């Protein structure tokens, strides 16, 4: 068991190192940093001094080594655009994205899983049919379209909800939250809904499909034959066996949303990492782009590792054989 955990974490670290190398290559070779950081009038001495200061005279291996050391400490250099520490820029923006994604994920699980179970158990129920139809729309209409429609209806027409921004936020050290103020919560409603609509639909359809499959298995039939009540058959036996794909997909969804919150954040002018990245791309702000790549990878890898550990916790077969298939099982 411990060996498996150590191996998983080792794998994660290895993947991280590869990503760091890619980020390093972008950082070092996508244009000359000295050229980008100094203005055209800088003297030759200034250029050489900066080269030395950035360690660019060192062999590439050494440069990569110190890049990793600095990255581990959260030092990604200075933004070209506004001359601030990249890490503090990201730390400023991360809570907004995180909060948005988490709220919509919680919504997705809290609504999607029960709906999915309901639709699987009562396939002919009219309410279940309607839910399945709506979920069809939910998975096929892009979030930004939903966002724009929401803005048109609730901000422009009705004037109930703010069309952009995060509202008032409360600061806890470096973390800022909008969940504690009325305006913050109001501002969260539309962006979270437009993200969650896809997630809810997706999770619901996934749970329904998995449940229908598990309900046909022998062990569910045998559980019925033993006279166990529906409640136990459905939730203790069937749902538990559907949880693997749901956990995997939820992990991937969270990762996707954090990485690709760009669109929603742009539509709602949500001051998150996605917006930061969009701005960085427009200004070719390479340190920010490299750091963004690293942070998003850390999030992905962490989520995957967590998913693997949930697998281990749920499925005894994986614990024993030590061949945890992890997130790639399906």
């Amino acid at each position, binding site marked *: 068991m411990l060996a498996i955990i150590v191996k998983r974490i080792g794998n994660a670290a290895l993947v991280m190192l590869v990503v760091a190398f890619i980020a390093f290559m972008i950082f070092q070779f996508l244009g000359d940093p000295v050229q980008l950081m100094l203005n055209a009038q800088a003297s030759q001495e200034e250029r050489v001094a900066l080269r030395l200061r950035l360690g660019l005279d060192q062999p590439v291996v050494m440069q990569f080594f110190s890049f990793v050391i600095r990255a581990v400490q959260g030092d990604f250099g200075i933004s070209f655009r506004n001359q601030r520490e990249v890490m503090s820029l990201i730390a400023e923006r991360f809570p907004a994205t995180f909060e948005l994604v988490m709220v919509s994920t919680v919504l997705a699980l809290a609504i999607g899983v029960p709906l999915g179970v309901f639709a699987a158990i009562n396939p002919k129920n009219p309410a279940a049919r309607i839910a399945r139809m709506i979920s069809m729309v939910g998975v096929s209409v892009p979030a930004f379209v939903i966002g724009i429609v929401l803005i048109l209806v609730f901000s422009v027409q009705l004037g109930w909800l703010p069309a952009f921004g995060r509202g008032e936020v409360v600061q806890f050290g470096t973390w800022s939250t909008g969940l504690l103020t009325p305006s913050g919560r109001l501002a969260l409603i539309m962006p979270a809904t437009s993200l969650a609509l896809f997630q809810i639909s997706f999770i619901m359809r996934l749970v329904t499909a998995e449940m229908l499959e598990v309900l046909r*298995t*022998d*062990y569910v*039939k*045998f*559980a*019925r*034959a*033993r*006279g*166990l*009540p529906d409640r*136990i058959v459905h939730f*203790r*036996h069937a749902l*538990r*066996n559907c949880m693997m794909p749901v956990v995997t997909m939820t992990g991937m969804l969270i990762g996707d949303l954090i990485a690709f919150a760009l669109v929603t954040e742009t539509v709602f002018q949500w001051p998150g990492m996605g917006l930061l990245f969009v701005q960085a791309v427009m200004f070719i702000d390479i340190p920010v782009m490299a750091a963004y790549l690293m942070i998003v990878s850390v999030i992905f890898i962490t989520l995957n590792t967590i998913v693997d550990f949930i697998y281990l916790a*749920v*499925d*005894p*077969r994986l614990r*024993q054989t030590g061949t945890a298939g992890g997130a790639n099982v399906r």
Partner: protein
Amino acid sequence: MNAAFAPNEPPLDPPVLSIRDLRVEFPTRRGVLTAIRGVSLTIRRGEILGVVGESGAGKSLTGAAVIGLLEPPGRIAGGEIHVSGKRIDSLPRRQLMALRGKTIGAIFQDPLTSLNPLLTVGDQLVETIRCHLPLSRTEAARRAIDLLNEVGIPSPELRVGQYPHQFSGGMRQRVVIALALAAEPELVVADEPTTALDVSIQAQITGLLKRICRERGTAIMLVTHDMGVIAETADRVAVMYAGRIVEIGPVEDLIKRPQHPYTRGLIGSIPSLAARHERLAQIDGAMPRLNSMPAGCAFNPRCEIADARCRSDLPKLLPSGRGSVACWKLALAEAVEAA
């Protein structure tokens, strides 16, 4: 009990299971398929009734109808099922569910897939026990250990905490049997309990079923297509063909003196049993499909001795010797018809 439909029962001992003229149908787009076409049988306390027949004969469906687990759109379209004198086929769903596991236990074919892989064997036993008996968690856990012990699982105290994948196939089938017995049912329906197991382990499992039957007086319906298993385990045998019972009777009689031409073919096709006969018989052809049943006896297209009446009229299951047979070519059937 009506003597007419249970011709070979001694009157003293009311049967645990009695099925009368059971019909099971599948409504499909192209008409209704009748898969079970009038099956009647009884099983007494402490008796093992073997049910044999080739694939598609309707053995599993008969068992599923008794447990009340026919898969939709399959439905009981006629006849009656009584368990310990109580009619169960017409019960509302809720009451039928209360019988499942409590009065009627079930054992399925594949022990590898019958157990939930994510729950320990103990968890599955305890939930089943507590669903039927008013026991506390600790009492149920103790009973779970006793049950594992009874079905012959070594060091049950250790085994209750383990997951199904930690058991071998034979051991898993023992767990499945323990689960089926959890609430001491009067009747157990075992659908091919040994088919998925190694030959060496098959004998252990049939031995266990036999012991349970003797010790607890459980009535067992043992569905299989293995005549060898039947010969070893069953007290009486029902031979099914195309949704009907063609012959039923004590196992020794049926194996030594099969009466129905189909039973004769079936017995003849088993090398070990056929050694007593002169040649190894083969039944040519295949069982008719549900949507193209021949008129008369369903076996007539494959029967060597079929005549005109076999091709027009359906023979009834009538007493013959110590059992009953449905065949026009037997003297008794003709005599009854003439009377």
